[in-house]
């Protein structure tokens, strides 16, 4: 443990059942005032890269809670996802900066891994507050297959087609 070179930024240690102790800058924490859907008690997360384009969104409060996420702008234009401009607790504005994270559901067979385009996370990058939004619109599938190879994707191919129409 090197404590040397005191930096001005305060560091916190996040406990992870997967990665052990992770040291991050305290101001890198992302706060979800309402938590994620189904996890209302877990409001604080940190992010770090996995293998690009995947990253981890890891709870600072629950060592075993972590999501694999990816950058939503890789799927479609940011505004197609309809940012929650009216969520005052998050405070995203049309001229502000925000990021979109898509939650990934991993399967034992990576070819079956899917992305939940129906419920992206929006994060105001200025205040690092975020919210999960649900798009009540069939063009956004909850299980968009990430692996595009004719046969592997056939099971969820219908959804993929729908999502492509969003282009």
């Amino acid at each position, binding site marked *: 443990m090197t404590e040397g070179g005191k930096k001005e930024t305060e560091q916190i240690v996040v406990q992870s059942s997967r990665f052990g102790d992770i040291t991050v800058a305290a101001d890198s924490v992302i706060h979800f005032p309402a938590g994620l859907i189904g996890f209302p008690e877990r409001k604080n997360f940190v992010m770090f890269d996995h293998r690009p384009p995947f990253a981890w969104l890891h709870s600072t409060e629950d060592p075993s809670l972590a999501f694999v996420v990816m950058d939503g702008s890789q799927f479609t234009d940011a505004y197609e996802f309809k940012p929650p401009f009216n969520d005052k607790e998050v405070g995203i504005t049309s001229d502000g900066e925000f990021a979109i994270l898509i939650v990934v559901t991993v399967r034992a067979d990576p070819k079956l891994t899917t992305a939940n385009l129906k*419920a992206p996370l929006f994060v105001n990058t200025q205040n690092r507050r975020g919210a999960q939004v649900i798009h*009540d619109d069939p063009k956004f599938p909850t299980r968009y297959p990430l692996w595009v190879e004719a046969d592997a994707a056939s099971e969820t191919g219908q959804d993929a087609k729908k999502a492509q129409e969003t282009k």
Partner: protein
Amino acid sequence: MLILTRKPGESIYIGDGIKVVIVEIKGNQIRLGIDAPSDVRIYREEIYLQILEENKKAAESSSAATETGLEGLTGGWAKGAGGKPASSGAATLFGSAAKPKIAPKGSGAAGKNKDGEG
């Protein structure tokens, strides 16, 4: 559960800020109008439950990513998603502040960040 009888055009208030109007009844369908503060989230139940389920599955399944490292996926990563090919991980969205130091335990799959800083 509180049960009330209303006619089309009539409303109920929930607290001071939420008004639910019976707009129309057509056969076995009822159209509701809801006036609520913008920070109140309103979802159809089945969609809400679907997302809740998928979030739980994503949280549980993410351990598979620790094990496999999503190895195959990063190679076969879809062009079909309609975007540019993925060049960097999403954590870079948040700038260098998000880069953690990880005390490796086991293989520490997330340990190597691609450093975009000058």
